[in-house]
């Protein structure tokens, strides 16, 4: 049976834009351009490589939970080469935290059917880096996360192997499918969509699901249902302008004098 891969992708505000919070202390998604989280491009790339290595005997579904505009993220992933997309969208999802998001993703992954889930290492807005582990917990399947190298052997009933470069050691990991994987930005440059890919993406199916379709009680998600509460968000005061000197041959000594004055030497 063909390998069913689900890639989780997040639609995020552009990190190089002026990101800020809305009045309800959720991320303001109206004033900043959104895009496919750059770190999720690596997840799409690895899915495509796994499919290629399986002589195309695999089907890649990209999945996002997000507002209407999140379709842009799905289109980008489809234009890179994914086969189809699932978009979970519901007004009641506004303000959902990681517990709620993972609940929705787990249901959507099950609904879609999967042998392998691939996620990014972290989103570029929330940056928690925990969703893949939570997803594995909720789905009750092995967690093979933060991989800088990944491969699948034996197709749908096979195993996933990978290398995890941790703080103190580099580990080789192995688990049976089905499993949840996440990949880092060390896993290999993501491809650019080709013109052909962009045209083909327009015709690929995008399925929309809401909370009812997934049989999720609206009260368990959204800002009201959240397990966490943001009480305040304040802009960090700009750093007071520092002293800038031009090196006229004594720059190193001047910097040393400053460090000594600050008691670092």
């Amino acid at each position, binding site marked *: 049976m063909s390998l069913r891969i689900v890639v989780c992708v997040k639609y995020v505000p552009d990190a190089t834009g002026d990101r800020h919070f809305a009045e309800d202390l959720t991320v303001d998604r109206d004033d900043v351009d959104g895009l496919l989280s750059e770190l999720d491009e690596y997840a799409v790339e690895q899915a495509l490589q796994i499919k290629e290595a399986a002589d195309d005997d695999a089907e890649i579904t990209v999945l996002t939970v997000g507002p209407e505009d999140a379709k842009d993220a799905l289109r980008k992933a489809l234009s890179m080469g994914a086969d189809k997309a699932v978009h979970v969208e519901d007004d009641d999802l506004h303000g959902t935290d990681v517990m709620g998001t993972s609940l929705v993703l787990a249901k959507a992954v099950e609904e879609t059917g999967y042998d392998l889930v691939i996620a990014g290492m972290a989103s570029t807005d929330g940056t928690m880096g925990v969703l893949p582990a939570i997803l594995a917990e909720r789905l009750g399947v092995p967690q093979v996360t933060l991989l800088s190298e990944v491969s699948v052997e034996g197709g749908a009933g096979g195993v996933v192997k990978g290398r995890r470069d941790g703080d103190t050691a580099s580990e080789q990991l192995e688990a049976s499918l089905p499993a949840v994987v996440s990949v880092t930005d060390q896993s290999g440059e993501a491809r650019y969509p080709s013109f052909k890919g962009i045209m083909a993406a327009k015709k690929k199916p995008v399925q929309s699901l809401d909370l009812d379709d997934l049989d999720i009680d609206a009260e368990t998600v959204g800002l009201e249902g959240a397990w966490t509460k943001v009480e305040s968000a*304040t802009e960090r005061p700009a750093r007071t302008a520092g002293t800038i000197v031009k090196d006229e041959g004594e720059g190193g000594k001047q910097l040393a004098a400053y460090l000594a004055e600050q008691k670092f030497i």
Partner: protein
Amino acid sequence: MAEVLVYVDHVDGAVRKPTLELLTLARRIGEPVAVALGAGAEATAATLAEHGAVKVLTADAPEFADYLVVPKVDALQAAHAAVSPAAVLVPSSAEGKEIAARLAVRIESGIITDAVDLEAGDEGPVATQSVFAAAYTTKSRISKGTPVITVKPNSAPVEAAPAAGAVEALSVSFSEQATGTKVTSRTPRESTGRPELTEAAIVVSGGRGVNGAENFAIIEALADSLGAAVGASRAAVDAGWYPHSNQVGQTGKSVSPQLYVASGISGAIQHRAGMQTSKTIVAVNKDAEAPIFDLVDYGVVGDLFEVVPQLTEEVKSRKG
């Protein structure tokens, strides 16, 4: 007084500094009960007691080393069941965050990651987070279940606070998931003899301007003169000049030292995400317009190949 579980990050019994910082924060909320797992777990007790642990729950089993993450979640869950704590604090390492997150699902609690400060509040502990590449500071709390909070290194001082630190064996029965992901081999990272990047009081980093692997010797020499850790920008890492384990930024390590020295680094938002909370920032860059200069307390516009070696010599002679 309520008990607070503190997950201990240690290497064969040597407690890593972020755990001692967690004990400082835990004491603001209640009485710290430490949980130490794996080889050398019992050897952590003396240090933990010195820093405020009233109890040290320990467990060792081959599963902790042979399988990824889940055995540790099983153990922490057992500790949670045994203690019924007011909060669970875990160091914000990649693994620590995953352990905390899975525990949160199991005990039906919310989770806050990467806190940089923690205080007691009427409705439970309030965590401070630094978000959007440190452009904003948020205060949050957990509204359901036992608060599970992961805390970044260098978020609190290490304080001596002698307590009993009584060792108790924690009994753990492993779940079916525990053996799901096998660690088939492990290659320990070679020690450089320099301080751990995330824990260091001073970090000296080099970027694309360093222009070659061999030139990183200049950065290392400055680091060694200051007793600092060495960091690198992604551009330097991608070029193969320095290991990824030393990368500072969004997809590398997040550091918050007393002093950050950036040489030949432009200051892209993704780099800033990993260093902007540093107390003092200095930079050497030949481009006066480089964005890094917006962050610095002191900056030198100049060629790093001139400025950095001169700085190193001056540091050495001042230190005598």
